[in-house]
């Protein structure tokens, strides 16, 4: 069960961490949040949830005007230029146990998020107070850096502050190791794909554990698909159903092999280039392949003899 906002707030009180609470209608974006919480209460934050190719996850919590360049970040973490991307919705629900628009440093209080790396904007230290969602997007709280630090330490985490705008042109080489590589989690996490999930961002959930509706033969058709009788699907199946995932799988394996056979950062760069240039071509081929297979099956269906009685 995920931590609820009330549980979190009572934890903060227990730790004697000073905070101010603002309730408002559920908001999904910083712009909306700004309508209800003025900047006099504290600095608004933008919170991003990323995933890398080896299924490791990162929360980046930054001041709204700090420039977060995904490519630069990826290089500084030692993951090459295209190494990280926004994490999918399922990961939000599974690991952080929050809904869309609700990523927050506090999410690491959940056991499920123990391997998620949390990086905080250095600029927060210049603010007296800043604002986050306490696990629910219909509330915002403002607190100080020392308050946040105290909380993180209480759950066994070392608060990590990073200058997100430094090193905008990172040169990663033998003598200049990627400066943020130490923050890459040591464990990867597998988030199972749940293709028939009902959307978790319903307003406002009382307890914030996201609705992990495992698609068992449900009596009513689920909202987002017309599929009534669905079988529990694991990530393996979606690799074959989905041309994008199929191609990602192929390129993952190719890169992995390449990197294991030959060493060096030019090889890493090469693997990245291959991936970047081939993804769209391969996806096109995969879609065509899928279309042909479907058409042949479809045609066979029209010629199907009824079962002999």
């Amino acid at each position, binding site marked *: 069960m995920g931590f609820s906002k009330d549980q979190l707030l009572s934890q903060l009180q227990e730790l004697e961490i000073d905070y101010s609470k603002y309730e408002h209608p559920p908001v999904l974006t910083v712009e909306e949040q700004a309508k209800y919480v003025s900047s006099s209460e504290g600095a608004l934050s933008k919170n991003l949830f990323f995933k890398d190719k080896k299924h490791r996850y990162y929360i980046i919590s930054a001041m709204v005007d700090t420039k977060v360049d995904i490519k630069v970040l990826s290089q500084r973490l030692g993951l090459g230029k295209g190494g990280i991307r926004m994490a999918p919705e399922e990961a939000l629900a599974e690991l952080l146990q929050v809904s869309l628009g609700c990523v927050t440093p506090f999410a690491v209080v959940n056991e499920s998020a123990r391997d998620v790396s949390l990086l905080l904007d250095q600029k927060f230290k210049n603010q007296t107070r800043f604002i986050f969602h306490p696990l629910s997007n219909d509330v915002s709280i403002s607190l100080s850096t020392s308050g946040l630090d105290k909380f993180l330490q209480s759950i066994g985490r070392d608060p990590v502050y990073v200058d997100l705008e430094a090193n905008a042109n990172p040169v990663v080489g033998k003598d200049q190791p990627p400066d943020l590589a130490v923050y890459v989690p040591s464990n990867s996490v597998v988030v199972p794909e749940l293709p028939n999930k009902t959307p978790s961002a319903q307003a406002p959930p009382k307890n914030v554990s996201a609705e992990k509706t495992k698609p068992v033969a449900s009596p009513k058709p689920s909202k*987002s698909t017309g599929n009534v009788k669905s079988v529990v699907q694991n990530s393996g199946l979606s690799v074959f159903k989905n041309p994008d995932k199929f191609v990602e799988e192929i390129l993952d394996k190719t890169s992995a092999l390449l990197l294991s056979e030959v060493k060096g950062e030019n090889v890493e760069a090469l693997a990245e280039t291959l991936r970047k240039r081939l993804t769209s071509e391969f996806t096109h081929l995969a879609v065509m392949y899928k279309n042909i297979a479907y*058409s042949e099956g479809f045609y066979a269906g029209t010629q199907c003899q009824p079962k002999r009685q």
Partner: protein
Amino acid sequence: MEVDKKEEIASDSSEQVVNPWEVSAKDGGKIDYDKLIDQFGCQRLDESLIDRVERLTSRQPHVFLRRGVFFAHRDFDLVLDAYERGDKFYLYTGRGPSSEALHLGHLIPFMFTKYLQEAFKVPLVIQLTDDEKCMWKNLSVEESQRLARENAKDIIACGFDVTKTFIFSDFDYVGGAFYKNMVKVAKCVTLNKAMGIFGFSGEDHIGKLSFPPVQAVPSFPSSFPHLFPGKDKLRCLIPCAIDQDPYFRMTRDVAPRLGYSKPALIESSFFPALQASGENGKMSASDPNSAIYVTDTAKDIKNKINRYAFSGGQDSIEKHREIGANLEVDIPVKYLSFFLEDDAELEHIKKEYGEGRMLTGEVKKRLTEVLTGMVERHRMARAAVTEEMVDAFMAVRPLPNMFE
């Protein structure tokens, strides 16, 4: 915000004319898109929307968005709002199959729609208006049906996913729930209004007058009971060229009266003809040298670009090196801005060419490479489209995994 402007279709060249059957600029100049947006009452697609798309789809926005090819919209922001809340939508686009020869300008809405389908993971309906072309171009019913099927093959070759796409021709599909919606729409539009919007007159045959509802009702999910049963509130997003706006203004006007959601639109500018950016608003299928066709060979493409692509370079090399190229009228650079994926490379070319260090020949050479690659890919994909595949795409069947 709908603006109720008096829609007078001007027939002289002192005003620009943009409607589904005619596109021409004022006094043979360039199309004024700002004026068009103003006149039609749609919105500009700004940076913040594009950033939002990037965030929601976790991938780089399509080159057509980055370069402002798709530049206007109606209610796209509302669609994104709903999407963020978990309310999906479906896509609707179409083609009037008037000729077998498809050129690159025809592919643009389909390339963009394919990207939208992949990025947002939503289903798509594609309408082939064979009836419209039969009426307007005076083709026989059989010929227009044949063209529809041939065009379907090129459309499929753009890479749509058969498990999420339904292609239909009007002659095949009109009837049932679709027709019921057509009648409902028709009841809401007076003859006078139709004449005002579309420029019909007493000389036009009644087939033309009754066509607009056909193009309107695919915006309503209840027109497709085999696809969206029970999902009457599902939103629709229509990627199209801006000359189609009148149909959908009418549709959006009618929708609330029928208890349906208004369809949202995302609109593109016109792809310029090879010869002169000034002469015509868009490419014409009737002049083979105004366009690059998907059936052109590498040699054809090279020739057409070298001979017909209007250049903004100067008359002599010395003059060119001194003042640089006129990027405003240069067609190769314009084409590259549509089709060259790499933003940095495009910027570099614009800078070097605009300041006179790069010559027209080099720009044309790069363009030839890019277009040849595209046409080759298309040809290969087209060759893989079988009659069975067309049947499968056009079969009235459910799409169970349409939102995955």
